[in-house]
């Protein structure tokens, strides 16, 4: 124990010394720039008043799942391989399931076969946030409905509250089901709920969402709807758009162009 304490004092003394010396010696400060994690030239984060996404399904090539693959690889979303325990952030569904009110028995082949990408709607009035008993799900000032996985108790009230089926529960440890772990993003642990986070971790580093970049046909447009000059704003101003179950008052921020 005594050697340990001596070591400790040595380190403490040395670090106290550096602390005093550093401001005096400019060389020292420059050298410190090499410390990993230190922000030498921080990337400019992308910011917005309200993030939103427009999806032009007419541009989606049939059977394409590039956006799904990109998102799930970046975010360490497991592929458990059974619908019971499955975790999904973005995936595709038949048109009739996504817009049941817009579906009728005379709709053509194209519409019947169409698969529409679905994800968390990042609602401006999110029921999941309203019901969460620990504020593990919360809405940021820029509109992103986000989860604090550290705080989630796994009660799944948010899953009952979400009118879009956008949330997944980790019914078991997801790690064995992740083909290749991306070390830059955490996995989740068993017992917490998860969902799309609009790539907030990428926005903070100045990068667009993974699904948007992965889409070769540019079907996904991401941007600030509060900015009148943004691409997305112009798009949804000029084209007819649909939002999923907008009558529920959740104010979804995913705009579909069909």
């Amino acid at each position, binding site marked *: 124990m005594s050697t340990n304490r001596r070591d400790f004092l040595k380190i403490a003394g*040395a670090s106290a010394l550096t602390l005093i010396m550093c401001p005096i010696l400019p060389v020292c400060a420059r050298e410190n720039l090499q410390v990993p*994690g230190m922000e030498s030239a*921080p990337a400019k984060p992308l910011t917005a008043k309200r993030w939103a996404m427009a999806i032009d399904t007419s541009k989606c090539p049939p059977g394409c799942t590039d956006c799904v693959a990109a998102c799930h690889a970046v975010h360490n979303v497991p592929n458990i391989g059974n619908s019971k325990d499955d975790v999904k952030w973005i995936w595709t569904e038949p048109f009739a399931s996504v817009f049941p009110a817009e579906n009728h028995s005379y709709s053509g082949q194209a519409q019947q076969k169409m698969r529409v990408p679905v994800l968390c709607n990042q609602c401006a009035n999110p029921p999941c946030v309203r019901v969460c008993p620990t504020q593990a799900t919360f809405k940021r000032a820029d509109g992103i409905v986000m989860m604090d996985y550290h705080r989630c108790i796994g009660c799944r009230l948010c899953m009952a509250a979400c009118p879009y089926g956008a949330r997944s529960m980790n019914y078991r440890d997801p790690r064995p089901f992740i083909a290749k772990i991306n070390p*830059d993003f955490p996995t989740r642990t068993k017992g917490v709920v998860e969902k799309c986070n609009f790539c907030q971790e990428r926005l903070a580093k100045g990068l667009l969402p993974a699904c948007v970049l992965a889409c070769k046909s540019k079907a996904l447009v991401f941007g600030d709807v509060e900015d009148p000059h943004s691409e997305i704003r112009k798009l949804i101003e000029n084209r007819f758009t649909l939002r999923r179950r907008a009558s529920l008052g959740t104010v979804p921020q995913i705009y579909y162009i069909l």
Partner: protein
Amino acid sequence: MKKGKWGLIIFGLVIFIVGVTFPVWYGAGTSAPAPVLDMDTPVIKSMPNKKCVEDTAFIRAHHMKLLDAWRDEAVRDGHREYTAKDGRRFEKSLTGTCLQCHSNKSAFCDRCHNYVGAKPSCFSCHIVPEEVKK
């Protein structure tokens, strides 16, 4: 009858006291060697001035509180930059900052955590780069 009752009470009390003090005397007499923390990682070696985010004494005593604060500030408030007492700035990130230098979790984090019997759940989600590369 009354005597028997007292016997029972004392018997119960003894069991209670033994149970409550169990952690105190359980480890008595045995001694575990103090953990030796390995700082020998490529990144630390290449640093001319080997200094953590804050000074070692502070980090040793308070790293869990610092990480706790980082986690709330980064996740909930979106404040991702930490300014150390000496003015250096870091990203508030366990994997992105701490583990970049201390890339040897098993010879650094684990040794001390095992010694004191702490079981932090950080790594059930956060990824240790050395483990992924394997």
